[in-house]
């Protein structure tokens, strides 16, 4: 029989279990990191990797004694959509009293969180959204951007394409995702083609929820281009790649946006062409290989690029807090703007550019391994050499100040 006393006992035990850790945390004065990322919707699959990446970084930092002797406490939440993202960001600053905000993949949600950071005059490290305008005309002094902007993606894949002779004097057909990110990508890609002597013979806009590309594939067949270049996002990339393989069109294909997860989802033998990436688990540096080994041990598969970028972002944040011995927004901004070097597990260190708060780093093109060379289902991408080349400055693939409307 359950009686009132049992229920009271259970209730008290529950309250103790819930209440005590909070008290313990308060005593050690943990540093609170608010972390927003899409966990559902068309970018949800990427967000799941993001959470796994930041968790591993937090565990490592805390196991090594935390930051200035204080624990790092990362609160991860689903940012859902731009409106919810901004509401949650405001709540995290006001009620949860987070010290800094981090996260995001969706460019539109990143934009609304940036506005909240600006209003509250608090730090937001924008990790995974790539739209140029975020670090261009929409930039603000409280936001720092870690992932590469679309111009860098276009340059990474574009330089590889130009080297292989797919741009100069060739007919190029574009397929573009009809939203902020896609338009941004198309703009950068057109500028690249124009500068390198390619002719854009078609540019079709496709709605973000397009699942069937067959009518577009028929139009591409009629246009007979030399190169089909895609400016697509999220699930669209996977759908396009699968159906392009299904129809087996003979034209060379390439894209200016792809996440490793999109490629994995396409399935064996479907992906072809040249694409850009910000990082890949086969990158041959001790840091990357140690991180990959650790991630594999915990999750049984290699990390996706969003897991990597969240991992290094938290390390970057911890480094800044340790160096400035502070979690104060102004001190951290000053440190980031100082040109401090950060280990991003790549061959060359990265740093934030002071005038647009963009992390300057290497990017890479990749192609697809010939059939039969893949070791497992995660292993079919053939990783290319870093751009820019080792003898060129890292900044050379980023938009120069003259082409960027950012005023902090």
């Amino acid at each position, binding site marked *: 029989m359950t009686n009132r006393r049992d229920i009271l006992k259970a209730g008290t035990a529950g309250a103790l279990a819930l209440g005590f850790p909070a008290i313990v945390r308060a005593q050690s004065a943990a540093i609170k990191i608010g972390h927003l990322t899409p*966990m*559902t*919707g*068309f970018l*949800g*699959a990427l*967000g*799941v*990797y993001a959470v796994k990446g930041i968790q591993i970084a937090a565990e490592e930092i805390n196991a090594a004694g935390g930051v200035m002797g204080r624990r790092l406490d990362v609160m991860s939440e689903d940012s859902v959509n731009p409106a919810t993202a901004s509401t949650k960001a405001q709540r995290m600053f006001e009620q949860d009293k987070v010290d800094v905000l981090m996260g995001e993949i969706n460019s539109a949600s990143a934009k609304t969180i940036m506005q909240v950071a600006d209003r509250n005059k608090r730090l937001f490290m924008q990790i995974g959204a790539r739209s140029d305008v975020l670090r261009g005309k929409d930039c603000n002094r409280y936001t720092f951007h870690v992932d590469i902007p679309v111009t860098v993606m276009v340059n990474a894949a574009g330089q590889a394409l130009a080297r292989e002779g797919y741009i100069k004097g060739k007919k190029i057909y574009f397929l573009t995702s*009809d939203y902020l990110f896609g338009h941004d990508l198309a703009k950068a890609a057109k500028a690249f083609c124009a500068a390198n002597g390619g002719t854009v013979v078609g540019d*079709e*806009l*496709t*709605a973000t*929820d*397009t*699942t*069937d590309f*067959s*009518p*577009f594939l*028929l*139009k591409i*067949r*009629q246009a007979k281009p030399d190169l089909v270049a895609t400016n697509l996002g999220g*699930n669209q990339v*996977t*759908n396009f790649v*699968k*159906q392009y*393989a*299904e*129809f*087996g*069109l003979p034209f060379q294909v390439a894209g200016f946006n792809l996440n490793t*997860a999109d490629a*994995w*989802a*396409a*399935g*064996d*033998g*479907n992906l072809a062409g040249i694409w850009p990436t910000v990082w890949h688990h086969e990158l041959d540096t001790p840091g990357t290989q140690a991180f990959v080994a650790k991630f594999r041990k915990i999750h049984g598969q290699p990390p*996706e690029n969003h897991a990597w970028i969240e991992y290094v972002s938290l390390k970057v944040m911890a480094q800044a807090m340790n160096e400035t011995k502070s979690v104060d927004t102004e001190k951290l901004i000053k440190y980031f703007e100082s040109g401090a070097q950060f280990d991003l597990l790549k061959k060359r260190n990265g740093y934030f550019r002071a005038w647009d708060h963009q992390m300057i780093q290497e990017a890479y093109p990749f192609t697809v391994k010939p059939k039969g060379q893949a070791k497992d*289902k995660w292993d079919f991408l053939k990783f290319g050499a870093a751009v820019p080349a080792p003898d060129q400055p890292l900044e050379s693939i980023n938009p120069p100040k003259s082409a960027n409307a950012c005023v902090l």
Partner: protein
Amino acid sequence: MQVLFLLEQVVNGLVLGGYYLLIALGLSLIFSVGGVVNLAHGAFYALGAYVSLEIAQRLGFGAGVALSPVAVALLGIAFERFILRRFYTADPILSLLVTFGLALVAEQAIRIAWGAAPLPASMPQAFKGAVVLGDFLFSKYRLFLLAVVATVLAGIWLLLNKTSFGRVVRAGIQRPDMVAALGIRLQPYMTTIVMLGVGMAALGGALFAPIVIVHPAMGAEILTVAFVVVVIGGLGSFWGVVLAALLVGVVRGITTHFVPAASEASMYLLMFLVLMFRPRGLLGERIEKFE
């Protein structure tokens, strides 16, 4: 030449229509007989895709496509017996709520079981590529898909129009009280209809897995299209749904040819126009119990 390109889009649209048909027909049947708009229909489509991949890993692509609809149809029986059955005579808002809730639960269950990351899926090498017939380009896989859809369609039509089972179902759609008065229990028929509808959705999922991304929210995506097709075709009409599915495919193809950015919007515009002039849908019958 221009006319030829347009014709190619029309033919491709017809093939695409077959693709929508598998999902829409089941949705329409369940509504016609039970009066329930099954918002969980997309979840069975998604399950069909996931289960087929699970089977295909062990027994190959063919087994996945053949067995997954059977497995999901069995689940459909449980769905009808324990959930749907309670709502045939209830306020429609209740069945909307319960099937909507179920769709969310199913999506989350898929996320828990298989993860949020999309699953990779490929078709057998033999299906890859296209064939050129005359001036038209067809994907080999879609021709195969079309053949399967046509077979299923013929089977369902024969079942509904040439068997005693079909007579009872058709009578049940129009006059359930009369059928009851004749001493026929409609419930086993309803169970069978739901089983068939759910099985068709799962077959759709299994067949589309190699050409679209397999992720937990795929059911919600297809449900909207299926619902639009049913509304355009008219409730309760077999040929209405067929006509509407083909029409949606063709309109989408033609729109892509002229105004590519509007291709996804075209079917909603079509629905708007049809409902303006024929509120009951293209071939919708007058069903007394819904009036």
